[in-house]
């Protein structure tokens, strides 16, 4: 269950700090599409995780 606790903590941290992350991404001087770039990176990570996933994994 340790992996799930770790995932839970990570998700909680991302959730709590998500407004600050977005504020940082849209601060003046950055391109309007910066949040989309960050989002695209997240999708790429998701794709990579799914791609290297063991078919027997939960």
């Amino acid at each position, binding site marked *: 269950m340790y992996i799930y606790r770790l995932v839970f903590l990570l998700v909680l941290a991302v959730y709590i700090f998500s407004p600050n992350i977005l504020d940082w991404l849209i601060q003046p001087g950055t391109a*309007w599409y910066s949040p989309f770039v960050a*989002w695209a990176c997240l999708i790429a990570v998701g794709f990579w995780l799914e791609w290297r996933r063991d078919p027997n994994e*939960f």
Partner: protein
Amino acid sequence: MSFSLTTLILVSFGYLLLLFGIAHITERGIIPKRWVRHPVVYVLSLGVYAGTWAVYGAVGMAGEFGFGFIAYYIGISGAFLLAPVLLNPVLRIGRAYQLTSLADLFAFRYRSQWAGTLVTLLSAAAILSLLSMQIKAVADSAALLSPHTSPRMVGILFSVAMILFTVLFGARHEQGGDSHQGLVIAIAFDSLVKLSALLLLGAVLLYSVFGGLSGLDQWLASTSYSPSPFSQQLNDGGWRALMLMSFSAVLVLPHMYHMVFSENPSPKALAKASWGLPLYLFLLSLPVPIILWGGIALEAPTTASFYALGTTFSLNSPALTLVMYIAGLSAASGLMIVSTLALAGMVLNHVVLPLRPPREQSNIYSWLRWVKRLLVAIIIFASLLFYDWVGSRLDFSTLGILALSGALQLLPGALAVIYWPEGNRKGLIAGLLAGAGVWILGLVLPFSYAPDLLHRLGLPVVDPSNSHIYVFASLTLNVVVFALVSLLSRTSNEESSAAQACSLGALSRPRRRELLSGSSEEFKQQLAKPLGIAVAQREIDRALTQLRLPPVEYRPYQLRRLRDQIEVNLSGLMGPSVAQDIVKHHLGFKPQAGRGSGQDIHYIEKALGDYQSQLTGLAGELDNLRRHYRQTLQNLPIAACSVGDDGEILMWNHAMERITGIAADDVVGARLNALPDQWNEMLDDFVSGEELHRHKHRLDMKGRPRWFNLHKSTLSGPDHPEGGNVVLVEDQTETRLLEDELMHSERLASVGRLAAGVAHEVGNPVTGISSLAQNLKLETDNPDILQTADQIQQQTRRISRILQSLMNFARSGNHAQANRYEPAVIRRCVDESINLVSLSGKGRSLNYQNDCPEDLMVLGDEQRLVQVFVNLLANSRDASPEGSTIRVSGKREAYSAIIEVIDEGDGIPADQLDHIFEPFYTTKGPNQGTGLGLALVYSIVEEHYGNIQVESPVSDAGQGGTCIRLKLPAYEIEDDAQERSGIVD
């Protein structure tokens, strides 16, 4: 720009008909299955989540809160990125137990019909707001396109169309059947239309209004658009609340649960959706800011929410306007159809069926179908009423928040299904009631009916910007009450077992209990009471086919599986609560005796087997050990079986399969009395008896007796209170036959010794008679008397010969004389034997051929070896026709000397081959043989540590001819000489 209402109706119906056509050709199988079940189709079908929000609401929210709008997409994207730990477990449970909605899942996990009903009612209340949002989107957009049209009229028309199409799409089949593939394809098409339209509009605006990305940057840098909501700091609370609601949507919104889990083609598709849906939502949100800025730049004549249409008015492009209208219609219709279908299924299972179970007489499938159609109509009509009374006054954001915050109350219970087995039904219901109370008081009533209610209660007044306060308050209260009540109240055993079955990585440990019904036929009779004979028959046959069981099943383990499968199937048909109720009452277990019966070991083994390589770490190591010991037991060279204290066979190893000829699959899980009679009698009697060992138990099988030794040991002990026995079965048949043979030989040996004694005693008088006959010949010249005396002497010689043979035979077997063995040349022995045999008057025309090599030697008594060959050659001579050849050949094979005596006689019949070495057995006529010749040969060869084989017939034609093959240890001159000298030294 305006369109007539008729045009809009035609376009709308045309599009809906196209959608229905796509679904129809899918269900007819015209679209290949591999396309229908392709993960891309699944991912697109999940796009139903966005609804009209994607086309209208998102732009409106972006206009107010800037990038805050993407929280609605980011939350659910997060949930999908966590699919392996969040969605896969729910998919697994849903598939295993045929749970088609969240209410099913709750009713199954918390073992409570009330939980299912409460979830259904709360979902219905929340979803009404979402459905009315879709009606509002279509009605308002139609009113924009056709200014003289009443939105209310459009709403009514749209609702009627939705009732019609929803019934056509999904309520044509009974529940629990295959997934609605036509529906999935149609919703995927909807999502594709929505996405294409938005991307098209975004691209048109970007290039026609701003002249590309650089133009957009310049426009944004200009002062014409200030202050931009995109540069404002986010409303942290609102963002977090929307993100959490969006995160929970995948589990708690009926249409999302339906599309994600019930219509899921495979776990692989869900894995692809873990990044596929975030990608789809990313593409859907990309044009939103551009549409908003385009609307502002073009000064579109609508509110920001409808810029998707307003910008097309400004661009003066009727085609683009119609495309965007269809995109909105497509988004709204997709969400409405799926939500209504999912909700109708929930209401049917958790409100209608518990109140009014289907009657026996009626056709249940048809009854369910009609009730579902009625429910679809009621739900859409209720949404229309909600739209008319409340929804038409509220904006998209408020309607969305009302729906999502209501459904959010189900999140704690849903997460507890996977992660918190301690949560119980009392806690769940208390938490849900508390959370729903705050939701109604803080959000529903103020937004819909009494705006000043909170003010009167002294609480902060709610508006879309601070609604997150009440969202979090309701959720927090829900979680706290759920946790406290669960921890303080008692959980029933049944609920604990269901919680274990649902927990992540948990394995249910069912008890091995005896069913009241003893066969699948009795199941049918029992189930016919609530379901009617036709439905009972169909459901049981279906379950038997699914489990690949024979048409009539009687094994207890398989009957328990069958019972579970029927419950699962009925759960898909009428929800888990009703299914549990029917199965519990009509396919019940016998009351348990004093102590609980054992765990269903076979079931657990099978479940563990299904995990295969999924177990890791310590669990994986323990599983490896389990497999090792299981394999050890299975491959044990002694037949072993394990029997529970109720007589159920729990283990049946390979050796047991070989001995009994009964496959393990046929008996494991059955009782001993299911075995064939003789095995049942033996094992049942032994298991139930007091004795721990039984020797030489005789079983007559197929006319042949077999003997078994049985041993048993009880399984009960400090670590295993459940009792039962392990039984070892040893096949003693061969040993018993050998013993019989030995006794026979002993008897023969006694006879031989007796015969030798008799021979010795008879020898003396015979010698006397012979002497007297000799004397008689000397004392008379009478030719008659002389002839008689000759005959007496002949007969006495014959008696002496017989007696000599008998004494030779009796003397053989004395191995002590082996010490006197000397090297003997086989060729010389054979020559001498041929000379001796030739002396007899018989067979003078036969050819004796000695082909033995000179150097072929054995260690033995040469005289006795000559005796062997004399007997063999004499037999051959007697059997051979005149003029034939008797050949003796010899050769060395490894350490053996092989000598063959081959004749061309008639051969030995097959039925006599087994007996020719027995003493006194002869095939010759009376007065021609004693039947001791070959018995003597056998004894002498045995004395020389050799063996003898007979082959007949041996001639090429396959008729006649006998080959006697002797195999004796060969003597090797050098090695053996050295050894002998070594011994001397």
